[in-house]
């Protein structure tokens, strides 16, 4: 049948999956993956844990995406958007795992779009204000170095799903960190002005780094069971990485991370999270029946 106009082909009958403009219908990130829980693990706790690591990635990705159309150069927008995309991918897998583990069957969208700020469990640094490009780079350096150390341990988790998600994340975080390192060196060891801005960025980012190493009770219990990772012991390794990078960038590295205090991990967020989520959730909340 010949169409009346060029759009007819898009809305006429299809065998369902061809309508890319309206989504593929394939949304489950973990379709066909064996999601049985490992022996002795509480599904509710595993779900909380997946939510923490998933929220870290999702919120950081949303913050990074704000650089699109706003970075110093097109190449950096592409880079930051690519990094955000990897993190969204990690978040999708982790949040899908959370919905299965807690038995609610909630999908990734329920977690991403239909929770209030106080229900998010990301560390505060993931939501920290966007700031200037130097701050974005120093934030990315801290978060990617920390998450890389964490994921490389999690890749040996007794939960095969978490282990697989983490092993893949390690490959991606390795080049996220490389990107942050290359810019930290260029900005720190650049002009007097870029060095000044980058030193200021380190001072802005540093107070939020303590929480990265604060152990939540759920993390402690799952670490004991060989399923999760206790972030506390990562302190020395991550500090060593940051000292090497900042020193090479001719910047002063603070002697240690601040004291560990749970904040975002237990739902205690700064004022910057709510507006970030509002932007992320606006379309989904306005069209609750939409498929992507």
């Amino acid at each position, binding site marked *: 049948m010949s169409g009346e106009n060029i759009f007819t082909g898009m809305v006429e009958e299809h*065998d369902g*999956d*061809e309508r*890319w403009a309206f*989504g*593929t*219908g*394939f*949304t489950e*990130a*973990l*379709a*066909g*993956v064996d999601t049985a829980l490992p022996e002795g693990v509480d599904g509710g706790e595993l779900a909380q844990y997946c939510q923490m690591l998933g929220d870290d990635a999702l919120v950081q990705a949303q913050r990074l995406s704000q650089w699109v159309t706003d970075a110093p150069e097109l*190449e950096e927008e*592409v*880079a930051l*958007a*690519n*990094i955000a*995309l*990897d*993190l*969204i*991918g*990690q978040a*999708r*897998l982790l949040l899908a795992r959370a919905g299965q583990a807690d038995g609610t069957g909630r999908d990734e969208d329920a977690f991403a779009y239909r929770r209030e700020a106080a229900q998010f469990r990301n560390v505060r640094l993931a939501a920290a204000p966007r700031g200037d490009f130097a701050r974005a780079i120093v934030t990315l350096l801290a978060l990617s170095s920390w998450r*890389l*150390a964490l994921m*490389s341990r999690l890749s040996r988790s007794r939960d*095969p*799903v978490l*282990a*697989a*998600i983490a*092993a*893949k*994340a*390690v*490959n*991606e*975080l*390795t*080049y996220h*960190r*490389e*990107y942050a*390192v*290359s810019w930290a*060196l260029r900005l720190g060891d650049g002009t007097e002005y870029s060095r000044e801005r980058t030193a200021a960025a380190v001072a802005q980012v540093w107070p939020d780094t303590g929480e990265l190493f604060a152990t939540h009770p759920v993390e402690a219990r799952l670490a004991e069971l060989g399923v999760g990772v206790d972030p506390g012991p990562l302190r020395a*390794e991550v500090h060593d*990485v940051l000292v*090497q*990078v900042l020193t*090479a960038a001719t910047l002063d590295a603070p002697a240690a991370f601040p004291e560990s205090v749970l904040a975002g991990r237990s739902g205690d967020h700064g004022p910057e999270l709510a507006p970030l989520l509002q932007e992320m959730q606006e379309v989904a909340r306005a069209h609750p029946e939409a498929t992507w």
Partner: protein
Amino acid sequence: MVSTLTERDRARGAAAAVTDPELPMLTLQDLGILREVRIEQDGTVAVWITPTYSGCPALAEMRADVDRAVRAAGFERVEVRTALSPAWSSDWITERGRRKLSEYGISPPGQAPERPSGPVPLTLLPTRAVPRCPLCGSDGTEELSRFGATSCKSLHRCRSCLEPFEHVKEI
């Protein structure tokens, strides 16, 4: 009666011929993301594919395309499943896939870096091998950006023929 092995080969052939929506010169077989095809007792064709990158947006389309291709080959029940482990490596791109990338002006990946079992060592200097220009074959190329139009590619420029080109990253 057709033997099950032949049926499986036919189902596998249909799935293997599906092309990547973002690299249409490559089939899922060329890319190394088709992991397994089995026909289960109830006749369901189960196809396992693996994502290249966690956030690869093409995965949903590939799953839909595989579903459609296997159905079109005459199988009524198809399930496309995700294989998360082991993580995809660019080393899985076949020789034929590499040749086709080059023919399309995209530089194929070199050998993927070794995956450390402990902490990932920090490198402060670029350690990547410089890709050869897929257009003129020159070794004199430079990286413009480690990130490109899709997760799997970086951007480069040839200093001899001055043409920009894409390179599939080693991962």
